[in-house]
């Protein structure tokens, strides 16, 4: 109390850092103390970026922050200010179009956000004010308000549960919208609060808002008129989070502690860093090259212009005098404006529409993933989910796959396989089980001999029934009954159980955060011990003899991944206080009597090598004194505001000692469907698969063998604590020695291969597998000396890169991310992919280039943080090999094609400058300049980039090796880029000079009339549009009706447009340049002949290349997506 008062006077800043104080119901905590109402933010959720007023400036500002848009804006401004050859419309219109489309899209998205915000903010809530219920809009909630929430309503802000309509002072909540866990979670009211909330006078002190959904510490001071203030600790179990829904409980009352943007939900939706794909980097590099081409073209033209003008009579012949203003302009300024004019004239070489097309391709293309019915999983009734469309093509570039084991490689669908009690093995068999639920032994030899004492058996089974956090699922009818207040649901079950036989297993649903626990409870049920559920704080179990035993649950020592165990403290009817503990062998064995360990260890290890998950179960009796001590310790630790975790941990460790081991369980975690095939395909595609798991080495290793990540002939290089301790020397030395040895084996002695990717995996005569565990990894990464550290890291990486697969076990989530980061930043910066399903995989999912979430059973955190989410591991194969491959080919072709078509568009215009006195005279009409990229040539490439399947999906799936053809950004490297540029230059030269020689005699019509400069440009442009479109048609390997429609349609549109554009005297045009030019051109036979000739001649090398390249096998097909020979053969075979 004193401290709090002091704190208050010491200044607000400090208080804001540590914790916040809230008066429940805004009643001042003490009467005489001057109360300063602290200011908290209101409950308005603002996820929108813009308002009506700032939309335009803010949106424009953000759009022009993009380099490309800014560049086009500059070009546009130059056109407006300087006297340039093309009107500002030619570049202003596309820019305006792009900006408008983007603005509309973003505006619409923001409008949706506004709508959603409003819906949330205006949602009516009930606030209790001085005993009255007041309906308010959600946004008006202030911190400290007491709210009433009814069943199935969502909590409008983060609340501390004060009162529940349930008798046991609990309420049930689902957090499906927060973390995807749809089970009902129990939350508890603050103990000992008064039933009459009106008279409750209390303050809450709690930490400042932070995004961790599962962490909360606070405390509540309850003031009563005549007593010392009571202090109650608050934890996550008292906190109801905004976004979760009240279930199975009529109403609750709670006090708002975090509101609006400070709720945990809002904090969690902020900031997910954007990932950029490698293709975008390539685009930027190409852009730079083209920018250089552009600048050098402009420079060449400017220089030549002034050289040419120096000749007498050329600068200003009598027929073409300059205006007065031009004469007056300073020479250098004139040079500069000339340079700018050339820049403007050639600026089309950098295509403004490419960005739009790429964005559209990505956005629309990603729908194919969501639409794919192969990704639909009938079990969860969901398909794939695309969270970002920016990375589609990255799926075709993956070199390293980091996968989680549990839930990803395996199903995380636990099946109780066997147990071992006191060293005796019990195996459950479906067939021939005694249905009366008696324990059946399955020892190979004599039953009697291999059976532990009945007492031990029952103790073990009771332990399984009690030591968990499982809930019994309420069926709807029971829920209804409870809602009507007829009877308590758990009682109802209990009556059932007492009166009749235990209900059939199928009817009983269990909900738990971890599937292991359900498996164990179900396992115990098979042996006759049924967990019936909670009744307030009492656990009820039905024994073999159909007795209902009740245990009072005193404490739950929660599971955490560091401790790797959990315990419960219960009090039986007879008054004994028992502690049951279950956990990983490594964490249990040191805490039990050693003589018991040996009998069980053998079983545990055998089970582990069979790929089962093992847990050891231990117990201990607590005498009254011990219990009192533990109880006090736990309570104190739970009340602590600071370092609560550490203090709790200390108490847990203290309590969980000196136990006696009862037995061990083995739970099978089955492999995912087609896990092995998927892994094999990924490896065949040249990807390195790394398994990163928190599980123990033996289990993980067996999973790896089962998934065929390790083959029988794979030589395993082990770098674990065990191998480190083998030598008997200092770990550091041994680590060094092993690293060097393995390096020699795997890297130096390995046959020299060009790159891991091009190596045919089947022909590799020696496969290495590498195993490392968390402890050793941290030794490698954080070696004592700096120089060693980087050297070890290098060695480690080199070894890993030469191994077909790597297994990292006993990994902490952060270590997973560390590994991903290390590989990501290694030489050649390979593209990494992480796949996982649980919260512990989030860090690596976020770290990798591509993060994939599996819609598994461990909640939705992984899915939420992923870039793509798929229901099952097996879908990864199609996602990468088919979708990824196609997306990459499509976008790579799109990018190359865009640069190519703009190069051969602008090159003739550049060449024309040599024939028009470097006067920046455009070759094409302004309409053509504007429409070329927008209308005439944009649709075919968009359709291509959405629909192309140069190799059909089945073949891609069957031949994983095809994936290697495009590895390492194969289609966007400098080689292919150079090829496309060369092609563009060739076409540009051909178009220009072909028509140039035709115009040696401009009398091209059969009536002797002559053609002028606009006819020249129109002929070149016609050849250009047709060639560029037909070039794409040549590259198209997959002609759907859409391709046909778009390709022939845009050619027809060009012809139609040209007629239309030239057919009318347009009143808004200053010059009718194209009036009937196109029609006249078509009336000339020579023009037709030259158009046909030039188109054919341009495409000829392309056709030749396709034909000549064919015999050289699939590797030659890298430059253009040419069907490799193998494909043709496959087609023949089918």
């Amino acid at each position: 109390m004193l401290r709090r008062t002091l704190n208050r006077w010491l200044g607000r800043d400090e208080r804001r850092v540590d914790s916040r104080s809230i008066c429940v119901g805004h009643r001042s905590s003490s009467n005489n103390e001057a109360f300063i109402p602290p200011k908290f933010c209101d409950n308005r959720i603002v996820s929108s970026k813009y308002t009506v007023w700032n939309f335009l400036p803010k949106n424009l500002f953000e759009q022009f922050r993009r380099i490309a848009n800014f560049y086009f804006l500059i070009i546009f401004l130059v056109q407006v200010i300087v006297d340039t050859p093309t009107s500002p419309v030619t570049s202003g219109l596309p820019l305006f179009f792009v900006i408008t489309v983007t603005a509309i899209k973003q505006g619409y998205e923001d409008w949706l956000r506004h709508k959603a915000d409003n819906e949330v903010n205006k949602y009516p809530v009930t606030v209790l004010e001085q005993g009255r219920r007041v309906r308010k809009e959600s946004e008006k909630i202030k911190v400290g308000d007491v709210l009433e929430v009814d069943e199935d309503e969502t909590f409008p802000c983060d609340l501390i549960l004060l009162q529940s309509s349930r008798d046991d002072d609990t309420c049930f909540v689902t957090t499906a919208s927060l973390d995807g866990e749809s089970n009902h979670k129990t939350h508890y009211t603050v103990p000992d609060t008064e039933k009459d909330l009106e008279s409750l006078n209390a303050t809450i002190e709690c930490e400042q808002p932070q995004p961790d959904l599962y962490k909360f510490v606070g405390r509540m001071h309850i003031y009563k008129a005549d007593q010392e203030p009571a202090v109650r600790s608050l934890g996550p179990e008292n906190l109801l989070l905004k976004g979760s829904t009240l279930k199975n409980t009529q109403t609750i009352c709670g006090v708002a502690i975090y509101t609006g943007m400070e709720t945990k939900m809002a904090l969690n939706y902020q900031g997910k860093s954007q990932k950029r794909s490698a293709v975008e980097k390539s685009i930027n590099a190409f852009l730079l090259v083209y920018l250089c081409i552009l600048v050098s073209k402009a420079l060449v033209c400017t220089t030549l212009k002034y050289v040419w003008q120096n000749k007498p009579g050329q600068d200003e012949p009598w027929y073409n005098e300059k205006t007065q203003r031009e004469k007056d302009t300073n020479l250098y300024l004139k040079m500069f404006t000339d340079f700018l004019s050339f820049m403007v004239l050639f600026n089309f070489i950098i295509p403004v529409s490419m960005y739009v097309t790429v964005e559209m391709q990505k956005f629309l293309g990603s729908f194919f993933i969501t639409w794919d019915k192969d990704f639909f999983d009938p079990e969860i009734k969901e398909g794939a989910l695309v969270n970002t469309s920016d990375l589609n093509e990255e799926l075709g570039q993956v070199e390293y796959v980091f996968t989680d084991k549990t839930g990803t490689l395996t199903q995380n669908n636990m099946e109780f396989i066997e147990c071992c009690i006191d060293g005796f093995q019990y195996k459950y068999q479906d067939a021939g089980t005694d249905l009366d639920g008696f324990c059946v032994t399955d020892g190979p030899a004599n039953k009697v001999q291999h059976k532990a004492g009945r007492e031990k058996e029952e103790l073990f089974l009771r332990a399984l029934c009690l030591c968990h956090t499982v809930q019994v699922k309420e069926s709807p009818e029971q829920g209804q009954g409870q809602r009507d207040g007829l009877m308590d649901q758990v009682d109802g079950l209990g009556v059932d159980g007492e009166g009749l036989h235990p209900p059939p297993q199928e009817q009983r649903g269990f909900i738990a955060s971890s599937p292991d626990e359900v498996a164990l409870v179900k396992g115990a049920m098979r042996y006759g011990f049924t967990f019936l559920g909670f009744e307030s704080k009492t656990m009820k179990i039905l024994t073999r003899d159909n007795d209902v035993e009740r245990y009072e649950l005193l404490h739950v020592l929660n599971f955490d991944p560091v401790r790797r165990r959990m315990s419960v403290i219960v009090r039986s009817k007879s008054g004994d206080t028992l502690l049951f503990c279950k956990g990983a062998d490594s964490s249990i064995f040191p805490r039990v009597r050693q003589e018991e360990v040996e009998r069980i260890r053998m079983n545990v290890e055998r089970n582990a090598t069979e790929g089962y998950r093992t847990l050891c179960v231990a117990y201990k009796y607590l005498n009254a004194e011990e219990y009192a001590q533990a109880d006090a310790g736990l309570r104190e630790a739970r009340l602590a505001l600071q370092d609560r975790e550490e203090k709790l941990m200390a108490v847990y460790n203290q309590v969980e000692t000196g136990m006696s081991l009862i037995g061990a369980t083995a739970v099978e975690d089955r492999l995912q469907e087609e896990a092995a095939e998927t892994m094999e395909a990924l490896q065949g595609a040249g990807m390195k698969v790394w398994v990163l798991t928190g599980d123990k080495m033996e289990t993980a290793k067996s999973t790896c063998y089962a998934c065929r990540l390790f083959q029988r002939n794979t030589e395993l290089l082990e770098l674990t604590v065990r191998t480190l301790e083998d030598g008997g020397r200092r770990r550091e030395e041994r680590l060094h020695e092993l690293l060097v040895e393995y390096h020699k084996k795997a890297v130096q002695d390995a046959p020299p291969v060009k790159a891991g990717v091009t190596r045919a995996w089947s022909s590799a005569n020696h496969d290495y597998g590498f195993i490392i565990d968390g402890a050793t990894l941290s030794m490698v990464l954080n070696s004592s000396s700096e120089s060693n550290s980087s050297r070890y890291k290098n060695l480690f990486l080199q070894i890993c890169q030469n191994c077909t697969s790597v297994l990292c076990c006993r990994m902490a989530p952060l270590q997973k991310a560390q590994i991903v980061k290390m590989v990501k930043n290694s030489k050649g910066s390979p593209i990494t992919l992480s796949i996982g399903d649980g919260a512990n995989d989030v860090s690596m999912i976020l770290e990798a280039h591509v993060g994939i979430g599996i819609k598994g059973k461990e909640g939705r955190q992984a899915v939420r943080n992923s870039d793509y989410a798929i229901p099952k591991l097996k879908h990864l194969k199609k996602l990468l090999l088919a979708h990824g491959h196609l997306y990459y080919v499509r976008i790579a072709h799109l990018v190359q094609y865009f640069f190519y078509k703009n190069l051969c568009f602008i090159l003739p215009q550049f060449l024309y400058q040599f024939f028009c006195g470097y006067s920046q005279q455009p070759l094409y009409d302004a309409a053509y300049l504007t429409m070329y990229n927008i209308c005439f040539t944009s649709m075919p490439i968009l359709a291509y980039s959405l629909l192309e399947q140069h190799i059909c999906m089945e073949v891609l799936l069957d031949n994983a090796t095809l994936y290697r053809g495009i590895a390492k950004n194969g289609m966007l490297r400098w080689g292919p880029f150079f090829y496309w540029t060369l092609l563009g230059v060739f076409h540009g030269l051909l178009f220009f000079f072909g028509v140039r020689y035709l115009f040696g005699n401009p009398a091209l019509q059969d009536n002797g009339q002559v053609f002028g400069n606009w006819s020249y440009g129109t002929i070149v442009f016609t050849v250009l549009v047709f060639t560029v479109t037909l070039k794409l048609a040549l590259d198209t390997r997959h002609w759907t009706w859409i391709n046909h429609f778009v390709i022939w349609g845009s050619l027809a549109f060009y012809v139609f447009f040209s007629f239309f554009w030239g057919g009318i005297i347009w009143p808004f045009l200053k010059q009718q340049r194209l009036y009937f030019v196109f029609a006249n051109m078509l009336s000339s036979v020579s023009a037709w002949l030259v158009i046909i000739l030039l188109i054919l001649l341009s495409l000829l090398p392309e056709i030749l290349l396709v034909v000549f390249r064919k015999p050289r096998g699939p590797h030659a097909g890298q430059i253009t997506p040419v069907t490799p020979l193998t494909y043709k053969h496959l087609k023949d075979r089918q």
Partner: protein
Amino acid sequence: MMASSYNAKEEDANHPGAANHAGVGVVKSKKPDNTAFKQQRLPAWQPILTAGTVLPAFFVIGLIFIPIGIGLYVTSNNIKEFEIDYTGANIDNPCYNCAKNFSWNSTAQCVCAVTFTLEQPFESNVFMYYGLSNFYQNHRRYVKSRDDSQLNGDRSALTNPSKECEPYRRSEGSPIAPCGAIANSLFNDTLQLYHIDSNGTLNEIPLVKKGIAWWTDKHVKFRNPGGNNNLTVAFQGTSKPVNWKKPVFELDPEDPENNGFINEDFIVWMRTAALPTFRKLYRIIQKKPSTTPTLPSGKYVLNVTYNYPVLSFDGRKRMILSTISWMGGKNPFLGIAYITVGSICFFLGVVLLIIHHKYDNRNNSADIPN
């Protein structure tokens, strides 16, 4: 991002019961449609270019192009063309004096006669062109220096020409009609052709000055203000282009259909040439109804009224007589190009055939062990 998740949540939260009842419906909507488009299984034609498919194409192209090329070449060769330079840059040129003494101010006309001989008779219609070299009609400043609405007969543009016409927009306070550099530099040499027959008399060859401009230009794009009658009134208040000798309404006083803006010489000039060396149609010599050639072989005299200076910018002037075929004027380029491309295609076809043949054999033998 947040909003969309809200949406989903709100639905979840507000209709908890609905999920059970409408479960089937929800499932259906979530399951991706099994349509060909969404599954990327649209029926598709998958052409594979192989030597086998390309080969016939090459042969066909070769077989079509070579005859076309030969046809073009022969046609082009059959076109008779005669070209004579009358710039007067050299002292031995009859127009040397005219060229040398040229001055914008002189009112006296300088006429020079150039004699030449046609070795071969010109059959059918003969087209007379004037050609200019090193004349940048495609210079940007020049190309844009015109006002199409003025030329289209727009009255407001007549009195207030577009700014693009600068510095040929106004002269002495009144607007220039037609304004701009193109119009100002209208080619104004007058060419007359005489045939010297065997007894030495000069027979003037009739030159037709209609039908030399595009029909659409003459009838739609170029219009006189206020119709074709009484152009003097229509153009009142405007002044002639500075380099012209007479105003626009006196371009062809005899024929009102060829006067003012719709004068065909003017229209032809206004279609700016693509390259600095160009020719423009000047006159047509219609073929005679009799069987005698339009221009029999023999001596001719070209009478030039020398008004157009080109030496200041090192230009050249030519007079060209040419017959015309279906492909236009004489130009061997197309024929040669077609023959070349056709031969290349044919040659490649042969090469491909050989390669294909060899490769197929190898391929087959490689396939057998499989």
